[in-house]
């Protein structure tokens, strides 16, 4: 029963999940070693949440191999879940209970004695900066507070592996940064984090390594830096021309940079040296209404790999 493959907390080969005719996860290979912060990126419907549910042992795989902490989710579900922390996409805190009771009652599901549960609840409320709201009900808390409380609840059993499904979706920037900072601290403590997100800045902030999923498959894998090097250029020049004329100007940019992408409102010029590329644009006598030279981001990789078409 002990982890045979202890360096990989998650080990998946050809992992599949079908719902009737629909294939949500279409044969993915993933290994997450202990101590890593790993991200699943992808548009809505890419199969991120289905994958997370299989890892959380609440959704049996339809095919392939899956080992969590070296165990089989089908056979050892409760034993695995005892060592996981799960922060779901939608908060499912109990609004009738107090902030602290939400943690202490949850701790009891793990067989944690009441006294230890109370002590741990207080430590965790300190950790997520909710100690002053300990006795208040959950209902009036802000979205950011509820999310922090959900994260605290996921930590109540001192898990080795924490699963976070879109941990900052719907939060305002201050709340997001506080959540990131707390998650970063967990990572420093050696907790393995696995998260899904469609925020590229979140992935760049938190993930050591990530996969980009699209239509149930893995489109790319690597560290954020790797992926940018592999799928984009170092810099991007954003050129805006008068409305409805982007296409005309695009023709005049041929040969500049490594790649050009024409959007309805602007043109993206991918180049390793953005300023040099811009100078050439100006040499050709083109005068965009606005110009932005920026570093390439994971978002460029993401859009390149998964396309710009709206999924839902």
């Amino acid at each position, binding site marked *: 029963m002990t982890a045979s493959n202890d360096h990989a907390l998650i080990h998946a080969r050809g992992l599949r999940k079908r*719902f009737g005719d629909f294939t949500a996860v279409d044969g993915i290979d993933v290994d997450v070693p202990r101590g890593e912060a790993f991200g699943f990126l992808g548009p809505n419907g890419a199969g991120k949440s289905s994958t997370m*549910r299989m890892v*959380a042992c*609440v*959704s*049996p795989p339809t095919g392939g191999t899956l080992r969590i902490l070296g165990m089989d989710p089908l056979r050892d*579900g*409760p*034993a695995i*879940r*005892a060592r*996981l922390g*799960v922060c*779901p996409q*939608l908060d*499912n*805190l*109990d*609004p*009738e*209970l107090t902030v602290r*009771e939400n943690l202490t*009652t*949850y701790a*009891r*599901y*793990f*067989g944690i004695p009441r006294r230890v549960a109370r002590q741990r609840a207080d430590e965790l409320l300190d950790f997520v900066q909710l100690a002053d709201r300990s006795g208040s009900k959950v209902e009036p808390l802000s979205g950011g507070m509820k999310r922090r409380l959900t994260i605290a*609840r996921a930590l109540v059993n001192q898990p080795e592996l924490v699963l976070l499904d879109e941990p900052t979706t719907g939060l305002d920037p201050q709340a997001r940064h506080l959540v990131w900072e707390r998650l970063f601290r967990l990572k420093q403590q050696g907790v393995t984090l696995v998260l899904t997100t469609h925020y590229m800045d979140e992935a760049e902030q938190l993930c050591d390594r990530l996969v980009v999923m699209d239509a149930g498959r893995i489109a790319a894998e690597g560290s954020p830096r790797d992926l940018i090097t592999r799928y984009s250029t170092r810099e991007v020049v954003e050129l805006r021309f008068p409305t409805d004329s982007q296409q005309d100007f695009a023709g005049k940019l041929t040969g500049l940079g490594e790649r050009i992408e024409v959007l309805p409102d602007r043109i993206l010029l991918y180049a390793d040296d953005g300023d040099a590329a811009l100078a050439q644009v100006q040499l050709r006598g083109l005068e965009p209404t606005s110009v932005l030279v920026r570093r390439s981001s994971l978002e460029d990789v993401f859009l390149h790999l998964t396309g710009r078409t709206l999924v839902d």
Partner: protein
Amino acid sequence: MSALTPTLAVLEFHLIGYRRTWRGSVFSSFLLPLLTVLSFGVGVGAYVDSGIDGVPYLDWIIPGLIASTAMQVAMMESTWPVLSRFEWVKTYFSQAAAPLRISDILGGQLAFTLLRVLLTAAAFLLVAAGFGTLHSAWAPATLLLVLLVGAAVALPTIAFSASIHSDSYLALLFRVAVIPMSLFAGVFFPVESLPDALRWLAYVSPLWHGVDLCRAVTLGVAPAWSVTGHLLYLAAWVAVGWLLAHARFRRRLIG
């Protein structure tokens, strides 16, 4: 850690939530029987001179009312609260993410429901004793019988609530199941007074079997059916109800 420990942890969660409302529910647990006794015993009873089965009308309907109240409490706890824990608050999903099994989540829900049934029936029984309506030393056995009735109606109801996504079906359930059962399952008059077709509906309903057993123990009379027959019939509702509810929970929580 015994096999029951996780179920008890789920029960503990429900009890901590109940701590906020128990005062009100205890108050109404006593108030409801008191009002019922006054209205039926003193009001309606005054017109039923002959009594039934050789006892005053009030004494005759008390065990039926206790069984019927047990059913109503069991159904209240198994409808909106269960739907909410799937649809709105999503408590069950958070429980399923912990190292609990489906049977722990369902068992904790059922244990809490039965505790509520037990307390409500105990209050009713106390009021009934206060009015001198209990005629047999077997009367305390009512408390065991209401647990059986409670489980027999709660489990299929839980299965139903776990299958729907909107509470409009619950109003329907009360109209087609709870109200007819309360009226025709021998609570207020002997089912023998009903035409055959309706009488069979009473026999099919779990409530009538509970009512007949409760009446036997509070009045010390022989039940209309064999005791074993009644108990087995109710046990069948419990067993089938558990299987259905377990299957529905699994389907919702593990997919």
